[in-house]
């Protein structure tokens, strides 16, 4: 069986096909949605691990769907960053799936509104699996039109998920989200048109070796970047994010904050640092860094001012995204692999920590019926594991050792100091200090039990609501300790074209 060989590149369609099929099956078998979804995310996680193993043994691979070679056909490929993003999605997705199960059964057990919650759950599973397939497709695709399609799948399923809670605020927020997301995709599509017009190629590897650097390519890159920035919610294009993330159901918030924005960021980063690296000017990098710095500060200031827990966590996402962009201007002082490592560490740590934080916030919301920060004194007495998860995730957001975010910040600071760009140092430190304030403003309330405090006895209690969040928080905290492995995987870098296309470039 040639197909089952370990070094067969066609394995890399598994993380796309399996969630997609499972999503369709969820529509067909509405009784067994959780079982289908759980097995799909499990297979997805295993596939991610398998692809990592394959990458380590056989090196990066390309796979042409249907046997059609580029530039005609559509290609997928694996390399270090892609498989790490797959792993991030796999792990976070698995935990979120378990949490979503606990979340919906808690809501359904809740007397009153049972129908509504069952309805929500019915739509949640297929949409989530569709989104997962889209994300995996985004990480693996090597064709820019194919990437556009995955962006659309992600955008539409994410906006629908955000609308699930059905409350007016959520509907409005998700509508805005949908419009921004569509606008972003259309701008991206326009960029593709320019690109195809000026070079006639869509395959990323082929584009990369293109020497042409005319106005067409630049315009295309500018348009695609703006579209992706809108989807990534970089300040000042972040307006849609906080309401959409804060008003969604908790598992949805976790998905949106942890995974969806990482998808468009990943694509943007890949375009800037691999495909069009030669067209990028220092000024452009500095602009991105400046916007990133703005995001760090503005997001953190807003997060400190919020009175509602979920809004605070959403603004913290705006802030944390900024660190990813501050890596841009420092790329001139470091080589590509090092910038990749900053971005990957930051993205993975943030994905785990932020989903853990949204899950904790959701659990607290479920049990107390509100998330007003000032009324959340003594939550620890009722939900100790949740508070622990929240605290550990907060430590990661602050970038304290040994979290993955610490590694990323260490590298950022190190290069900022080495290249004498001390203003980035100030921004990063200020961002971390503000993160400390907004994290501890909440934690100090949670853990304090004043004298004479009577803890609320909770009727329902589900382990699935607490432990996945704690597991993710611990992963984010201990990510720094496995840094050598991640770097090892990352170092299996990008494809050497001469290996893949023995006949040379077309």
């Amino acid at each position, binding site marked *: 069986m040639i197909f089952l060989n370990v070094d067969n590149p066609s394995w890399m369609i598994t993380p796309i096909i399996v969630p997609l099929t499972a999503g369709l099956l969820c529509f067909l078998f509405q009784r067994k949605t959780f079982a289908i979804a759980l097995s799909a995310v499990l297979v997805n996680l295993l596939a991610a691990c398998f692809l990592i193993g394959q990458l380590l043994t056989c090196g990066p691979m390309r796979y042409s769907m249907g046997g059609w070679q580029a530039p005609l056909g559509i290609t997928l490929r694996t390399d270090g960053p892609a498989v790490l993003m797959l792993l991030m999605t796999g792990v976070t997705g698995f935990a979120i799936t378990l949490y979503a199960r606990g979340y919906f059964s808690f809501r359904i057990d809740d007397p009153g509104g049972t129908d509504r919650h069952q309805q929500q759950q019915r739509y949640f599973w297929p949409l989530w699996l569709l989104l997962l397939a889209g994300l995996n497709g985004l990480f693996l695709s090597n064709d820019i039109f194919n990437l556009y399609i995955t962006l659309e799948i992600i955008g539409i399923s994410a906006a629908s998920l955000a609308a699930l809670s059905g409350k007016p605020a959520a509907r409005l927020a998700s509508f805005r989200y949908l419009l921004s997301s569509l606008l972003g995709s259309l701008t991206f599509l326009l960029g593709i048109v320019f690109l195809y017009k000026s070079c006639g190629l869509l395959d990323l590897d082929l584009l990369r070796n293109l020497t042409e650097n005319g106005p067409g390519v630049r315009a295309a890159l500018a348009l695609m970047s703006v579209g992706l920035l809108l989807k990534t919610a970089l300040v000042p294009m972040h307006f849609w994010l906080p309401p959409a993330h804060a008003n969604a159901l908790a598992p949805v918030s976790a998905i949106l904050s942890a995974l969806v924005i990482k998808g468009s960021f990943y694509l943007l980063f890949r375009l800037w640092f691999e495909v069009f690296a030669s067209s990028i000017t220092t000024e452009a990098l500095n602009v991105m860094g400046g916007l990133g710095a703005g995001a760090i500060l503005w997001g953190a200031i807003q997060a400190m001012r919020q009175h509602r827990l979920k809004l605070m966590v959403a603004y913290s996402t705006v802030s944390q995204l900024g660190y990813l962009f501050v890596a841009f201007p420092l790329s001139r002082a470091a080589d590509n692999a090092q910038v990749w490592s900053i971005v990957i560490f930051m993205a993975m740590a943030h994905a785990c920590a932020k989903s853990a934080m949204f899950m904790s916030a959701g659990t607290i919301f479920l049990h107390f019926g509100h998330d007003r920060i000032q009324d959340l004194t003594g939550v620890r007495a009722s939900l100790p594991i949740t508070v622990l998860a929240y605290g550990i995730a907060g430590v990661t957001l602050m970038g*304290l050792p*040994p979290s993955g975010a610490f*590694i990323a910040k260490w590298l950022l600071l190190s290069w900022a100091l080495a290249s004498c760009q001390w203003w980035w140092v100030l921004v990063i430190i200020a961002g971390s200090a503000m993160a400390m304030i907004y994290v501890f403003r909440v934690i100090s309330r949670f853990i*304090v039990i004043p004298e004479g405090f009577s803890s609320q006895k909770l009727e329902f209690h589900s382990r699935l609501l607490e432990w996945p969040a704690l597991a993710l928080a611990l992963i984010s905290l201990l990510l720094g300790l496995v*840094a050598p492995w991640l770097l090892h995987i990352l170092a299996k870098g990008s494809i050497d074209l001469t290996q893949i296309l023995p006949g040379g470039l077309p």
Partner: protein
Amino acid sequence: MNWEQLLLVSILLSSLIPGIIIFGLPEERHRLRTILNLCGAVVKISLIVIMDIGIYLGHTFEIRMPLIPGVELLLNGDPLSALFATLSSVLWLLTTIYAVGYLEDSPNRSHFFGYFSLCVTVTIGIALAGNLVTFLLFYEMLTLTTYPLVIHRGTDKSLRAGRNYLIYAFSGGAVFLIAVIWLQNVVGPVDFSATGFSPGFTDSHGTVLALIFVLLILGIGVKAALVPLHGWLPQAMVAPAPVSALLHAVAVVKAGAFGIVRIVLDVYGAQNLLLLGVLPLLGGIATITILYGSLRALQQDNLKRLLAFSTISQVSYIALGMSLVDQPLAVIGGLVHLVHQGLMKITLFFCAGNLAETLGIHHISKMNGVARRMPLTMAAFTIGALGMIGIPPTVGFVSKWYLGLGSLAAGNWWLLGILAISSLLNGCYFLPILIRAWFGKQQESWPEELYVGRFETRLMLLLPPLITAFTVMAAGAVANAQISPLAWVRFIVREYGL
């Protein structure tokens, strides 16, 4: 993994595992919690003693764990870490006994003792850290694990104190982080070693390295409570007495002082610092802190606040000793004070806690004649206070003697004067308390007398201060013996080849 590495890991685990189990224990499992705590503490002490012997016999205890190129975690047991680890683990055992007695019947004990164990794990981590990155890791964790203890009471006042503590500690941590990264950019990864980095860098990057030294001291000075970075410490007094004892004598302030020692001796090294000419700066800050702490202590009526200012003053003796790094006698005085100050200060805090817990006395003005009601507690307090003043044969005398000899050898007459003034000031604020307690007449009934029993207070509250007070006397009297803090410090100084 050889037995040395296994030993290092089990030293850390011996308090981490009980801590994690205790978090999960229901509130009412009082006995099991106490047994876990005490077993952990005893096991830890035995393991550390084995490590001490191993270090003395010349074994290397080292675990390396690379993270990213240039950044690795390194646990390393050297004579200096043995000093701090032994001190922390012994005092942790006593503080645990004390805390069990102190918190009897109070709520949230699982939470308290869980963080208590984590805190000591982290402190031992600081002791064993073998490079700046590892030190930084445990240093930040120390803030995280002590914060819940500081705000344990949950009052507005304690929350405010906790907030200030966090802001101070993390700002210090951020400055420290920048300094560490910068240093690493200039001289490459440095492990703690007896000589510091290569003197070649001092010639080529003199100004930058001097600046980094200042940043490092600023960053670490927050925890060591150097003036003007000391603001959090007097406020943190709202924490329960065992926590204060832990903060002052074992963990936080001590970790800061230990960090200064590491930076001076192991990162920069005597030779580089003399070339850079930054030592007078450290000496100056230390002198100001010593005098300022004592002067502020004079004005206090709240006993615990007085002790806090006294800590600020006393811990700077360590920094002072380090600023005379070329004088072996001064280094001995500074290092041995790390242990001696811990013993004396923990005694004083235990006694202050006893007064507050048994009689409800928080203020010095209420202490008239208290020695007749609690003679043993006040005897221990007296020994601790006399030690702080530096009266022989207590350990305080030994520290000051060596510091004085060191400053004489350095030709620094004015430092000797500072030491004398400081002792005088110590006398000025401690002696009135002693006189009041022993010879004053009780004017009114005690504010809240909670306990009347066979002893003057609960046995678990009484024993720890008696043991530490006895040690304060004994370690001073037999300072020249084969096994004493002083002997070990001499061994350290020999290892450094000073």
